[in-house]
Structure formats: structure tokens, C-alpha cells
């Protein structure tokens, strides 16, 4: 009986295999929910304005969604453990400038090296966040709020008044985000693969499941022998590394990078994660959901643009959607818990 809420929150117990199947179905339905909203939105928009589903437009949607989806992947890992990483936007900014700056400093530097540089910068930032959170056991909201400022300030000190302009970047680098097969950019395919790999890891690996366990009940997870600190540390390092890579991709996407790259993105990423059905207090949610949440937000913004609704409505509709998504998600999980409880009572009698 008492293990039931854990089953709901994704820990999964042997005793609750029947309820797990039910939970599985509903979890799948949850992601289907986002897909359904997405499809309805696309259908309505394209019925009014057929231009919405032409190649160029779909490309735009993906173009806007991929970076978001990638950041949402890292953020989800952290949020699952009942922590939060607000510093992603600053890590992105730092990595975007430093990695793109390599092109003008080292002549003919291979693109792989630039990506590695971005990754290392991101990992280093993630290590700082993770170490302070996991070792000093300080609330991550405070830690990453502090590092949000510190990393951005470092960025500002390093960049000064300078900026990287697109003309200093090689064409092959800029082509990373623009080349596509049909309407789908190669980058979107790669990132979809990365997200699926992340989903597989969280679903099937022990350390992945342990992230859910930590988020469901940190104290119980520690008592069960899960190296809580180590897992939380790794989640922050992964999130940092992903933000670092996202920074390099940001540079390739926009070409012009000054010290404001990614400024103010932190809460938007958290919003995408929350819209994607990840519980802000950890323990439940999937990275595919979070990535779909990012895609949904990008689609809606593009739909408004195509429908000729003033872009001044974007923010309000985003905000409204986030509130609706949270309410819906809460409603579903309350329903699910009571359904599971009823079911197990039937089994017991």
C-alpha cells in the first residue's frame, strides 16, 4: 500500500506490476496529450493558413525548437532529482562566445574541437553547480541563481564590448544548423536521436531510474543505498555539458554573439520542461515529454506568426499555456493516484 505513490511517481515496484501497467498507459497518454495538442494546433492553423505546413515554415519551427529541446533534456535530468538548474542560460552564453571566438583565434581550427571546447566549458560550469549543491548540500535554486549571475558576469568580463560576427565563422560551421533533408534539418534529427537516447537511459539504466527515485523521496533514496549526492552531481554536470553544446549550436544558429547570448532563457527552458509534463518537484516526467513541450512552444509561436496575429500576443499565450499545462498535469496525477489506490484495494480484497 505505502509503496503505491512511488509506483505512481515512476519508481516502479514489483508488487505493483498491475498498477504499473496502468501507470505506463497513462504516462504514454500524457505524452500523447502533448502530441494531440500539437496536431490540433497544426491542423487548425494549416486549415486557416495552408502556408503553415510548407517546407520553409516547418524548417523554421524546427530551427527554433531544437536548441530548446536540447536544453530541456539537460534541465529535465536535474528537475527529476528535485533540483533546478537556473544557470543554463549563462552557461550557454559563456560557451557560445568562447567557442565561436576560437575560429578567429586559431586559424583553421576543426569544428569538432570547437564543439569539444563548448562541451568542456559547459562541463566545468556543471561541476561547479553540482559540487556546491551535492557536497555542501545547499539548495540548488540558490546555488544556480548565484552561478547564473557569476557565469554571466564572467561572460561579460571576457567579452567586454566585443562580439563574434558571422563573417569570422566558417561556412561549414554555419551550415550545421541550416542544412536539411526536405523540411527537417539534420540537426533536428541528431537532437531527436540524442533525446531518445536520454529517454532510453532514464528508462532502462539503473542510474537513470535512481534519478526518479531521488526525486520521489530523497531520504528514502539515500536509505535504499542510492548514492544520492553522486547522482545529483552527475545530473548537474550533464545539464552543464548540454548547455555548453547548446552554446556552440547557438553560435552556429545566430552567427553574431555578444555577451547577451541566451540572456533570460533560464525560465523559458524550465517552462518547456514543465509544459512537457515533468513534475517541478521531481520524480516524474520524461525527456521526450520535455522535448515535445519545447516543440509545442516553438510551433505555437510560429503559428501565431503565420496567422498574422501580432507577435505581441506570443508571450501571453505562452504564459497561458504554461498555466494550463501545469493545471492539467496536476489534475491527471491526482486522478491517477486515486485510480491506483482504488485498483490496489480491489486487488487486496
Amino acid at each position: 500500500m505505502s509503496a503505491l505513490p512511488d509506483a505512481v511517481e515512476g519508481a516502479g515496484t514489483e508488487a505493483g506490476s498491475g498498477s504499473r501497467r496502468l501507470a505506463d498507459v497513462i504516462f504514454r497518454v500524457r505524452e500523447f496529450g502533448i502530441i494531440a495538442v500539437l496536431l490540433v494546433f497544426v491542423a487548425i492553423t494549416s486549415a486557416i493558413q495552408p502556408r503553415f505546413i510548407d517546407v520553409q515554415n516547418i524548417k523554421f519551427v524546427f530551427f527554433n525548437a531544437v536548441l530548446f529541446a536540447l536544453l530541456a533534456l539537460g534541465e529535465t535530468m536535474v528537475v527529476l532529482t528535485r533540483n533546478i538548474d537556473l544557470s543554463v542560460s549563462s552557461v550557454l552564453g559563456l560557451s557560445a562566445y568562447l567557442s565561436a571566438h576560437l575560429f578567429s583565434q586559431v586559424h583553421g581550427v576543426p569544428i569538432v574541437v570547437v564543439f569539444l571546447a563548448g562541451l568542456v566549458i559547459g562541463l566545468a560550469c556543471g561541476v561547479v553547480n553540482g559540487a556546491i549543491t551535492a557536497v555542501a548540500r545547499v539548495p540548488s535554486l540558490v546555488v544556480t541563481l548565484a552561478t547564473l549571475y557569476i557565469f554571466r558576469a564572467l561572460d561579460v568580463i571576457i567579452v567586454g564590448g566585443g562580439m563574434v560576427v558571422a563573417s569570422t565563422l566558417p561556412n561549414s560551421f554555419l551550415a550545421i544548423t541550416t542544412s536539411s533533408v526536405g523540411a527537417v534539418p539534420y540537426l533536428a534529427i541528431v537532437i531527436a536521436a540524442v533525446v531518445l537516447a536520454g529517454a532510453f537511459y532514464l528508462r532502462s539504466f539503473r542510474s537513470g531510474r535512481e534519478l526518479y527515485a531521488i526525486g520521489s523521496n530523497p531520504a528514502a533514496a539515500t536509505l535504499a543505498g542510492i548514492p544520492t549526492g553522486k547522482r545529483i552531481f552527475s545530473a548537474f554536470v550533464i545539464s552543464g555539458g548540454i548547455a555548453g553544446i547548446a552554446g556552440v549550436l547557438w553560435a552556429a544558429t545566430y552567427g553574431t554573439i555578444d555577451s547577451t547570448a541566451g540572456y533570460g532563457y533560464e525560465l523559458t527552458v524550465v517552462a518547456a520542461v514543465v509544459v512537457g509534463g515533468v513534475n517541478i518537484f521531481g520524480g516524474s516526467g520524461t525527456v521526450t515529454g520535455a522535448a515535445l513541450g519545447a516543440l509545442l512552444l516553438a510551433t505555437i509561436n510560429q503559428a501565431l506568426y503565420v496567422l498574422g496575429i501580432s507577435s505581441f500576443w506570443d508571450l501571453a499565450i505562452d504564459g497561458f499555456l504554461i498555466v494550463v499545462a501545469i493545471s492539467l498535469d496536476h489534475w491527471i496525477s491526482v486522478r491517477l493516484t486515486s485510480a491506483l489506490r482504488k485498483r490496489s484495494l480491489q486487488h487486496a480484497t
Partner: protein
Amino acid sequence: MRPETALGPSEVEAPAPPPGPATASLPSRETTSARDRARGLVRWESALVILLVATVLIGALTSRQFLTSTNIFSNVCLLYGELAIMTLPMTLVILAGEIDLSIASILALSSSLVGYLWENHWPMPLIMVCVLGVGLVCGAFNGILVTRFGLPSLAVTIGTKTLYAGIAEIVLGPAIITNFPSGYTTIGVNPFPGTHQLLSYSAVFFIVLAVIFGIVLHATSFGRSVVAIGWNKEAAQFAGIRVKRVKTLLYMVSGLMGSLAGILYTFRLSTAESDNGVDLVLPVIAVVLLGGVSIFGGKGTLVGVILGLLVYCGLQSALLLTNFNANALEIVTGGLLLLSVLIPNAGELTARARRFMNRYRVSGTS
């Protein structure tokens, strides 16, 4: 399946912590807070007083302008007045164990509304009443979502932060309204009469409000119930505190203060724009946390927050005068924020480090 994977191989391959220290150092907030009280090396408020003295000394020694009334008026009071006002309700909300990320968006919405209604020839007093009312409604909406729907405030207010900022954009669009009557804009930029050119209107508002908030928080049963809720919501409920009502009220106060800050912000810049002050929310939270308020609620004082605010403003203004890279000021904010959580835990941290070292020494000799 789960017990096997969790306990079986993991104990073999990973050096699982011995049960003693592991249970002793469970990351439970009740035990942490109790430890803080017992073992905290330095009370954070005392540290803040030292920091404040150091800030004033550094400022006075490095620049002759630091202690002049011009600097205090235009670089401290004017610049940080609205931020200061918003830290007051934020302190209460965080003390109650919740958070309000939407307060700066309410500021932006209020500023937009002031501009929009003025453009439509409403009389200014009516505009102010109206805008304050809108702030209350925005706050009440947050409160209802959090208390009646039972949604996590961190997520809800990320949503309403975007929503209110979005409504501000809808209200005003790309327009920038600047033709406010000088009778009101002087409120924004002139010193309050009788304060020796020292305090701005926003600073006077802040001082009056801080006294009211301080009395309410520390000397009324309502204020104590706020802290009780943050400390232990269930216990507060059983003690007969109307938890939901108190929290809703706090969010409404938060909205009201956001609106007031929005009106003052508009008058100070004599400009209504849809993105006025939207980035202020994280600095507001940073100042509150800097003041030693626990992010989990239940712990913290308004005096601490005011000290934190003074350190924050003082340092920023001192560094500005010393030609420190102005854009890098935030590194100081971040650093202080880290210190504010690390120093009160210093005793616990060193104890844990010693235990860690001991464990390795033991395993090394055996």
C-alpha cells in the same frame, strides 16, 4: 526488481556510505535547520552587519563621492527604490515557503497600464487606483492557483510571469508613452521634501512600508502564522491557521506591491514601456536570500533582508564609483548569494569534511 538493483550489486561496486553517517546526514530540512541553530558558527545577520560596515568603509575610502547625498540619492535611492519595495512582499512569500516569480511582470503590466490609460485620457488618480487593483487581481490569481488548485508556486509563477509580461505587451504593444504630467514625474526623480535631498519618494515609501511589514511580520499573529506555515505547513494547519487564506493574501500583497513599484518606475523614467523592469525578479529574490531568508521558508528576518538590501545597493554603488567593470557587478551578487548559504552551514560543512577525512584515514590503515 527495484530492491535487487538498488541494494545488490551497488554495494559491491560503489563504496556505499556506511549506514551511520548516511542516516545522520540525511538531507532532511528539519534536521538541517535544527543543526543550523545549534551549530551555526556565525549568525548571518551579524555577518551582514560586518559586510555592510566593510562596504561603507571601502566605498568611503576609494571614492570621495560615496557618502555624498548626491550619490546616496541618485545612485542608491533612485536606482533601487522599486527593487527595495518588491523585496518586502517577496520576503513574506518566501518565508511562507512559496515563491513569486511574477512580481516583476506585474510591475511591467502596471507600467504599461499607466501608459495606456493615460493615453486614453483617464485622470491620473483614477489610473493609480485602477492599476493597484489590477495588481491585486494578478496576485489573487497566483494565490488561487497555488492554494485552491494546489499547484507548485515555482511552476505557476513561471507561467504567470510570462502571462503578465505578455498581457503588458498586448496592452501597450510597441508604443512608448512619455507625455506624463510633470506633477507626477517629479515624484519619480525629485527628493522627498524635508530629507536633506537624501531620500527619493520610492525610498520613503520603502521605509514606511518596511516598518509596517516589520511590525506585521514580527509582532502580529498574522506575521507569526506566515513563518509557521513556512516552517511546517501541516502543523500550522492543525494549529488552526487558515493556510490557504494567508497564502492567498500574501500573493495579493505581492501583486499590490508590484503595482506600486510599477507606478513609481513609470514616473521615475517618465516612460511607460511594455518591458519595464521585467528582469528585476531574480535580483529581488537574490536580495531576499542574501538577507538570510531560507528558500524553504520558515526562517529569516526582515532586518536581515534590509541589511542584505543595503549591502547589495552599497556594494553596487561603491563598485560603480571605483570604475570597476560595471557589467561585472553581478559577480559580486552571485558571490554574496553563495556565501549567504555557505557561511551559516560552515559548522556543519567542516564537521562533514572531518568525518570524510577520518573515513579515508581509517580505510587507509586497515
